[in-house]
């Protein structure tokens, strides 16, 4: 499994339908990942669309040196941080609408996190700091290697290692005895 790189190569060779495979495989994962930063599914979706459209408009940008998933997550993270930086007005949402939003997030979680264990962990992860959340998400939910996660987070492998160690320690406290088996 090359996380869509071979499909994208076929797309670059002229097979337009190959791009659908890339979108099918990675779009929801990217939205879920970006949502972790922006905490807004719609904004996360827009960011993910923007990132994927870059693959179409700027076809030489991805050089196949990292996996396509890592590349997309790097772009997604950078756009998400830009979005947070430039978001001047915080939209306050009515409580009744917030219920729907929660539903949508949960819906997305169901799409991305098929595994029940992962969903339980994801619930506990929300109580961690942003960095810890990110590293847990990339390593456990997206099955990235430490190196790939480090590239996405723009940290060294050692930093990722330490962060993950501390995150797991905190998660054990949050999840209790059951957490030992989940992690």
């Amino acid at each position, binding site marked *: 499994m090359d996380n869509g790189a071979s499909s994208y190569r076929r797309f670059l060779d002229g097979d337009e339908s190959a791009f659908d495979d890339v*979108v099918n495989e990675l779009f929801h994962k990217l939205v879920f990942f970006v949502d972790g930063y922006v905490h807004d599914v719609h904004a996360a979706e827009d960011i993910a*669309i*923007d990132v994927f459209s870059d693959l*179409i*408009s700027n076809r030489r940008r991805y050089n196949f040196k990292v996996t396509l998933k890592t590349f997309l997550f790097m772009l997604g993270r950078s756009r998400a941080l830009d979005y947070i930086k430039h978001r001047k007005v915080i939209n306050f949402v009515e409580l009744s609408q917030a219920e729907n939003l929660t539903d949508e997030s949960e819906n997305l979680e169901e799409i991305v996190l098929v595994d029940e264990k992962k969903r339980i962990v994801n619930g506990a992860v929300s109580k961690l700091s942003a960095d810890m959340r990110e590293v847990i998400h990339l390593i456990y939910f997206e099955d990235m290697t430490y190196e790939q996660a480090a590239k996405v987070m723009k940290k060294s492998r050692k930093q990722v290692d330490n962060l993950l160690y501390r995150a797991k320690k905190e998660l054990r406290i949050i999840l209790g005895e059951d957490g030992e088996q989940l992690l």
Partner: protein
Amino acid sequence: MRNLEECRAEIFRLGEEKIKTRRRKRSRIIAACVPLCLCVIVCAVIVLNSGGQLYNDGPSCSVDDGPSFSVQESYPDKPPVCSTPVKYVELEIISGTNGNPFYKKITDADDVSALFSTVSESYTNGSELNFSALLGENYFNGGANDNKGDNHDEVRPDVPPSAGTTDSRVSFITFRTADGQEVTYTLSSNLIYAKDGIRIINNEEKQKLLNALGLS
């Protein structure tokens, strides 16, 4: 939340839009840069041409143009070198013939220009002095051919009959610029001496020169 089909369509639409925007930007840059480059080239050509004319506007360095010469600062007496034009405004002639001294000073710039032109033309037209021809081959090879060199009546076509021997008159012709730089030519017999060498002139040329300088 949009479904995947909608998102896919949106991705393609946005991708195409980005491509169009980039093309538009590129063509806009080209549209702006091409005239700019042309302007720069045209300006450069104009400046270069005007720069060339600046030098050409001044008196040229040909001998015919008279005093339009420069004198290298380290060698004020050196004959003209073409760089910055120098205008001679004063001419001093000191001549001596068998104890009969002659002195003349001309300060009229036009006359000086004309005379400089005449003198420098004569110098330029003169043939370069061949010392071995003037003094004989034996002078340079230590008299090895003394037996052959006995014939002093031999005619040497490149040496005028009077060159360096018969006429005892020596004239110093000095041209000065307003700021004191000067070029001196020395006329003796059929020879003109300048800083950079000695030239031989024929009798006709010499007579013309003497007439012009008022030494005849």
